[in-house]
């Protein structure tokens, strides 16, 4: 199993470094360094059965934010760029990218032999249409805010697109990757039933096209014969079977009904360790299981209370209780970005439990006798229940009595959206870029949403600087400062990243996990006879 190696040099070059000056010319037909390594022994053919526990609500790459959607649509839709596990955005439908010295103008040369699943050839007009569509908030895309710095998009010729920004945005290339950066044929959404059609027919440029989508049952994809990378992909078809829960994934693997599955509970790997014929692949992820502290809520308004809570929590013990040892304890960034962007844990405040200091802080804040606090946990997120009990015990030691409130996801999202998070668990992921990870969640409105009511002017300044700075070393320094600030004023306590655990039958070859957990690797996988 290929594990993404995070190359420090590449990461420090960030999203711009090499590409900006040289572009990246590539031989026609050669397998690019995307989706995972090319395998010279790969053989064509076969249907791969994937068991998944979360069904995508639909397959619309523009109007659905859910990870379950993105996980599968990355095989059918492609952006101009690819979120390489190294943390770099690399050309995908673009051939090269040039950035003007002021960082405001991005010029993309497009690949010439790209065909949509509809049969049309891709041109710059399609790129302009797609990105103009998504950045218009009136079209209701959850990705609209990410494209907010774009001032206008023009086409120089059929294969050149120029994107002009209203202010520099070093993460633009990462924005044009595969979550919301998909390119579709122009006027795709002009038809009245366009959104419904995307559940029956794919219109992207990816290696697989949609063959059938039967809700509550399965998604079938077929190899796209006119795919632009010659000789790719190897599989004839992929069948995503929707299973009710984590236990049924384990059964499906054990009984060889499924060829591959990503375990929603990484600790389930232990049940499969001794099953012959199964390979277990483990990789650090871009997800975080965290505790959020709403700066507008009750005692949490006092920064000393937030610090005391952080100092009373033993993250390692919480992770052990929730998922065993199958993850990485976090500081202030996710596991798969720790090497490239993270501040070392020993340079951050409030990372190691210190009960005396916590009690002192609470006493200073006028809570010497302790107090009661509600902790919100989301029904259906299994890790939260053991974590809640563990944290309740830990906080008890400094006099904070937790009442655990379990709420339904819809209810929780409502509170989140209206910036009424209180004291709650959270479970979320990112693309490998610090601006995308932090900005919307922590920047004050109107530029960001500051869901935790952190209202920290220093953080706002750093977040804006980080967005506008393209020099990788300077950019990293800014995000290190931001993380120190987070660790000192505690708007959130990132607990741990669960490992990505993907289990394959031995006949499945050359599947590489991506730190997002999305199914990119199936574009390079093949089935041995």
């Amino acid at each position, binding site marked *: 199993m290929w594990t993404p190696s995070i190359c420090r040099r590449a990461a420090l070059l960030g999203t711009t470094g090499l590409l900006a000056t040289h572009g990246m010319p590539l031989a026609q037909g050669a397998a690019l360094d995307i989706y995972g390594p090319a395998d010279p022994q790969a053989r064509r053919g076969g249907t791969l059965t994937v068991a998944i526990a979360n069904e995508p609500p639909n397959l619309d790459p523009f109007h659905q934010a859910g990870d379950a959607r993105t996980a599968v649509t990355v095989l059918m839709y492609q952006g101009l760029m690819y979120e390489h596990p190294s943390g770099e955005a690399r050309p995908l439908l673009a051939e090269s990218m040039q950035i003007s010295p002021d960082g405001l103008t991005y010029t993309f040369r497009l690949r010439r032999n790209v065909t949509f699943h509809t049969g049309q050839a891709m041109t710059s007009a399609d790129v302009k249409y797609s990105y103009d569509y998504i950045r218009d908030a009136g079209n209701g895309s959850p*990705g609209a805010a990410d494209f907010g710095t774009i001032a206008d998009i023009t086409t120089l010729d059929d294969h050149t697109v120029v994107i002009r920004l209203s202010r520099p945005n070093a993460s633009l290339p990462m924005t044009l990757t595969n979550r919301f950066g998909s390119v579709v044929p122009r006027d795709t959404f002009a038809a009245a039933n366009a959104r419904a059609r995307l559940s029956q027919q794919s219109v992207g440029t990816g290696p697989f096209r949609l063959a059938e989508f039967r809700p509550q*049952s399965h998604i079938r994809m077929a190899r796209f014969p006119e795919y632009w990378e010659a000789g790719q992909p190897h599989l004839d078809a992929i069948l995503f079977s929707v299973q*009710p829960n984590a236990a049924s994934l384990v059964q499906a693997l054990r*009984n060889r009904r499924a060829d591959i599955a990503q375990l929603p509970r990484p600790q389930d790997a232990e049940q499969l360790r001794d099953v012959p014929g199964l390979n277990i692949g483990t990789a650090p992820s871009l997800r975080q299981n965290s505790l959020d502290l709403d700066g507008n809520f009750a005692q949490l308004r006092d920064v000393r209370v937030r610090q005391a809570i952080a100092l009373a929590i033993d993250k390692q013990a919480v992770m052990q209780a929730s998922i065993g040892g199958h993850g990485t304890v976090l500081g202030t960034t996710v596991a798969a970005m720790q090497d490239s962007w993270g501040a070392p844990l020993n340079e951050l405040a409030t990372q190691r439990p210190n009960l005396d200091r916590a009690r002192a802080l609470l006493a200073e804040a006028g809570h010497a006798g302790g107090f009661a606090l509600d902790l919100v946990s989301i029904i259906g997120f299994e890790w939260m229940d053991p974590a809640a009990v563990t944290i309740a015990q830990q906080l008890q030691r400094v006099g904070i009595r937790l009442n655990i409130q379990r709420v339904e996801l819809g209810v929780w*999202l409502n509170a989140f959206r209206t910036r009424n998070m209180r004291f709650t668990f959270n479970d979320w992921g990112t693309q490998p870029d610090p601006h995308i990870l932090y900005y919307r969640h922590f920047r004050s409105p109107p530029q960001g949403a500051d869901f935790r009511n952190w209202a920290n002017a220093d953080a706002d300044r750093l977040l804006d600087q980080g967005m506008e700075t393209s020099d990788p070393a300077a950019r990293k320094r800014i995000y290190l400062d931001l993380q120190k600030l987070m660790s000192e004023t505690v708007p959130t306590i990132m607990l741990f990243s669960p490992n990505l655990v993907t289990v394959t039958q031995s006949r499945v070859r050359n599947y590489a996990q991506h730190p997002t957990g999305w199914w990119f690797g199936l574009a390079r996988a093949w089935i041995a006879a």
Partner: protein
Amino acid sequence: MLGALAGRLGAAMATAVLSTAAVFLLIRAVPGDVVGEMLGQSAGDRAAEGALRAFFGLDRPLWQQYIGWAGDVLRGDLGESWRQGMPVAGIVGEAFLVTLQIGLVTLVVSLLVGVPLGIVAGVRRGRWPDLVVEAFSLVALSAPVFWTGMVLLIATSTWLGWSPPLIYARPGENLSDNLESIALPVLALGLLQAAAYAQFARQQTAIVMRQDFIRAAIARGLPARVVYGRHLLRNVAIPLVTFAGVILVQILGGVVVVETLFAIPGLGRTLLAAIQARDYPVLQGALLVAVLIALLVNLLVDLLYATIDPRVRGA
């Protein structure tokens, strides 16, 4: 007879209208909506949120939304799913056929198993066949369906190394895959309903066995074939048919759990997914169909009752 039927139909219609209105309001009273589900943690952009809410008509007052929906339903249009954009009629229709197959097969299985057991137990009351049937019923009735289902799943998978196919196949697509898919759900539901049937048949048999005409028949020395085959069965059949309706409605209720457990894309799972995603059109369409089925089954039972028992005809 016709008057009674018209009355029943009227009551059924009123039930349908009231229950759909209740569902319509209840689901909207639950916090969160489809827009929140689509945005997830990418929320925060008010303009995009407002645009989506307007797209689904969620910005209109409740009464306008209900009248709009009810008007479409009366014109035979259940609308489109807010998740997949596909017509609700198609989604619900397909899901209903899946559930119906499981429901009917379960009904037949529970009839074939439960009725003979119950009659034998009723005739041999207090003796060992009765005790065996009682023990079986007690266990099967006490175990919740999700537990029975889980035990079946684990047992077949660990001891037989067999588990149902990952993907449900319709009978027309691949009959053997289809039967493999529905085997465990039918067994899980069937055990419970067979037990319920056995209990009911036993009790009815016991009642009829005490009647004078049975005693007279036995006293007259009629052969057992005639006593049980003609006199007993004919009289036990009426309540058993009524009970089939009750059982079928119960089965349709139980499939929600079983379909979720066994990944069967029937009405129950569709309903649950629609609730979780706040997909109001699918939820309302699926519940409308469920309500209509329950009403229809009850109506049919009444009619059947009249056919089997001449005494009911004039009433």
